[in-house]
């Protein structure tokens, strides 16, 4: 319960912090931290225009996207408090329920019959397909290390395994989760949300035709997703046994830190060429595979 509240809480500030970081980094004063929330309110109040080409899919896709991320967040534990739902191999459910949202976003893009959106849909489908193995290999590594197969158990028991290499996993985990979060949310270096050329966009081009309430839902889902991944990053980097207040503080700090990193990355880094994206994502898989090899070495399977 605490975790969920914290996720929602951080989701409220997350985009603002990114924006703020970016503007500071580029030497502007920038909007307030709650500016994205205000934008949401504006979107909510707007009237809606739909394309005549679209069908019911287009209308329900944002809803399903949001619902899927809500469901996914129910699995995320916080500190040593188990999640709402924690069961064996629940991260499979996590990945797959997110895929449901993505599935609908992709087909809703195709629903508009626009060439641009088809392009974006294709890229979204392609890149998220490539990113899946990295996530699963890393979780397999964790499962192998701890002997548990649910988020709650893994993260509670993660630091209890008295392994010297725990920090390595922690670091790799943080790195991987950051990158996967970037891919899932179509951020740098895969995609640039602020680009102005439709031909190079991924996520933004998918929602070109959404407006008003639907667009607000999409934004909410996106913010929540960030927060959920931030929460995963927190879980992997902080031992579960610590004091609950300390945990809360650390959680907020890490979410903040995550947002700042994203902001800085987006300020100082150029986005990949589209063709390089697939290599980039495969690199992630390679990294998580390295983690797996390490676990094999430390458990003494290779002398």
């Amino acid at each position, binding site marked *: 319960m605490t975790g969920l509240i914290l996720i929602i809480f951080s989701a409220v500030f997350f985009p603002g912090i990114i924006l703020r970081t970016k503007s500071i980094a580029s030497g502007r004063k920038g909007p307030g931290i709650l500016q994205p929330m205000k934008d949401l309110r504006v979107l909510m109040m*707007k*009237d*809606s*225009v*739909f*394309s*005549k*080409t679209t*069908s019911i*899919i287009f*209308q*329900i896709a944002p*809803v399903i996207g*949001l*619902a*899927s991320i809500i*469901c996914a967040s*129910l699995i995320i534990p916080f500190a040593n408090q188990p999640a709402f*739902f924690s*069961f*064996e*191999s*629940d991260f*499979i459910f996590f990945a*797959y329920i997110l*895929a*449901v949202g993505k*599935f609908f976003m992709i*087909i809703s*893009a*195709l*629903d*508009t*019959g*626009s*060439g*641009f959106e*088809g*392009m974006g*849909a*294709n890229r979204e489908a*392609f890149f*998220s*397909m*490539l990113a*899946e*193995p990295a996530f*699963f*290999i890393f979780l*397999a590594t964790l*499962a*192998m290390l701890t*002997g548990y*197969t649910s988020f709650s158990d893994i993260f509670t028991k993660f630091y209890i395994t008295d392994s010297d290499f725990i920090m390595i996993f922690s670091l790799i985990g943080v790195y991987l989760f950051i990158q996967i979060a970037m891919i899932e949310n179509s951020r740098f270096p895969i995609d640039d949300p602020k680009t102005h050329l439709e031909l190079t966009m991924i996520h933004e081009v998918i929602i070109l*035709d959404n407006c008003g*309430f639907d667009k607000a839902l999409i934004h909410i889902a996106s913010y929540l997703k960030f927060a959920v991944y931030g929460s995963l990053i927190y879980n992997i980097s902080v031992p579960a046994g610590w004091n609950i207040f300390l945990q809360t503080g650390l959680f907020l700090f890490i979410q903040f830190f995550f947002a700042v990193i994203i902001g800085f990355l987006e300020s100082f880094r150029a986005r990949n060429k589209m063709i390089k994206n*697939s290599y980039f994502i495969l690199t992630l898989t390679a990294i998580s595979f390295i983690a797996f090899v390490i676990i*094999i070495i430390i458990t003494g*399977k*290779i002398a």
Partner: protein
Amino acid sequence: MDSFLFLTIIFLSFGIYFIPNRYKYEYTMILLLAGIWVTSSWSIQALFLNDLPVSIDLHSGLLNYDFSLYIDKLSAFFLLAVNFTSLTGLIYAYKYLKPYYRIKYPLSFSIHYFSYLWLYLSMSMVVMLQDGIAFIILWEIMALSSFMLVIFNAENREIMKTGINYLIQMHIGMIFILLAFLIAENGTGIMGFRSLKPYFSDHSNIILFMMFFIGFGLKAGFMPLHTWLPQAHPAAPSHVSGVMSGIMIKMGIYGILRVVASLQSDLFIIGNIILFVSLISGVLGVMMAIVQHDLKRLLAYHSIENIGIIGIGIGLGTIGLAGKNDYLCLLGFGGALLHVLNHSLFKSLLFYSAGSVNHSTRTRNIEELGGLIKKMPYTSAFFLIGSLAICGLPPFNGFISEYLIYSGMFKSLYGTDLYTASILLSGIIGLTLIGGLAVFCFTKAFGIAFLGQPRTNKAKHTEEVPFPMLFPGFMITTVIMIIGLASTFFVLPAFEIVTDLFTIKGLDQSELNIYTDNLMKISSLGGIFILTVILLIFYRRYHLSSKKVSYGKTWGCGYTAGNSRHQYTATSFADNFTCLANPVLRSAKLEEKIEDTDIFPKKRHFHTSSCDVFKDYIIEYPKEFLLKSLKKIAVMQTGQINHYILYTFLFIIGALLLTYFELI
């Protein structure tokens, strides 16, 4: 009593040839329902009521072989799946076949319905028979009847060729199975699955298993043996493709399971072989599916993919058996079994929907479709549900079986040795890739075919199919949702079947509780998801009711004259994937270059095609080569007597020489 009814059905099936054309369908339906009634009652007895298998004497004492039926839990499970899919298929056929009544002859229908009935009967008997010869006979009757079903539109030479290709491959498979049975019989004196355990206990397991695997794998469609599948399914009428892809290819899985259950040694190697082949089938199957433009061929490749998933489960289960890892065994086999059921559901649903599309648009090429969701809302909804389920997405049924297999792998990772760990990891990667690629593929298929604007007139002037063609969709969707949301009722029996079949230690109560708990949580999460969606939709509606909603053109970046030809096509959707996977897929592009001198370019054409590498290199080229060389032998019949005498002369001389040198 029941056995008499069953025999009566068998005899009455011949009556189709004498029934007036108008009532043939009804006659078939009555017989099918009777068959379903009988076999379902047996299987429910075997599955839920009895602990012991049900034996039915078919009064076959007069015959040469033992035709008595024997239904254990595995048979019962397959029987139920067969029953359901056959029923939906026949319901679907009612309207689907209507247009053909005008152009086809009564005999075609007699043959068709007769074959359908016998496909059902043979499938149900294949899973019930114990005697080897009886099994083989029914196995081949199954191939034969499905062949007759595939060639329903046999006026088309291509379809005929495809059908014969299918029949021959099935026959080759049958010969492998037959030889394997005979080898086992030679060792033990018993013919049939019962002989395998004694045979395996004192002979090498791997060779005989490979023979069975090839034989059954041909039916199931494992990767290098799959080539008949993508051809036969598009050729067949849709209800037939639904039944064939849905349940008939699973008969191969049934056979493999029976053989695996009898294995005594070499389990680890065999498990690895199965897993390896299945991974290839799964990943390559879905990769090839992505580049297909024919809706039914795409689905056929997905059958290969799903057989791969089932195979992964079986392979893992076998590895679990080898390592005495009951969890892996249970989850692997259990997942595979459940996926058999699941796949039979959503694949038949998808094929029926594809058939409906074909029925009303007269095309299966997704590049020619588009915007069908407005014209055919129910069909589209069924296709969407099928797509979500086949991608293994919650809260649909596909997720449950994939979850079981995944969870078996993840659970077994802890504390395994290097080999097993790498195998499990490859299984995980494979399943993940399959899942991602399936999403890619079905977003493409659904998005291009059903959404957007109609790309051609064929798609523009369509209408929803009549209710009898939709009804199976409702039935299947209901079951899909029940499995997705109340998975406990299906997973636990599946576990029971596995413990029964492999005689492993079942789950004790506490472990059982854990599983029930897991599944309940998944179910409730699914429920929450659906609830959230519904709530959000209602809120959205409420919210929008106070706003002004207007409709306009799709945003065109300032270009306002966009038409349906500006839409993304299936080819372009798959393009970046195709580029990446080209070494495997070898898709070819034919384009006309624009010359420098073309100031005003004329109309140009662009054509892409994909080939099946396995089909070409493993089946087609060797086949061509063999047939060619065989034909070369056939130059002896020259029509000249002196040549004929020469052969005799040479043969006598040759035989004498061989005799003289004591070579024979």
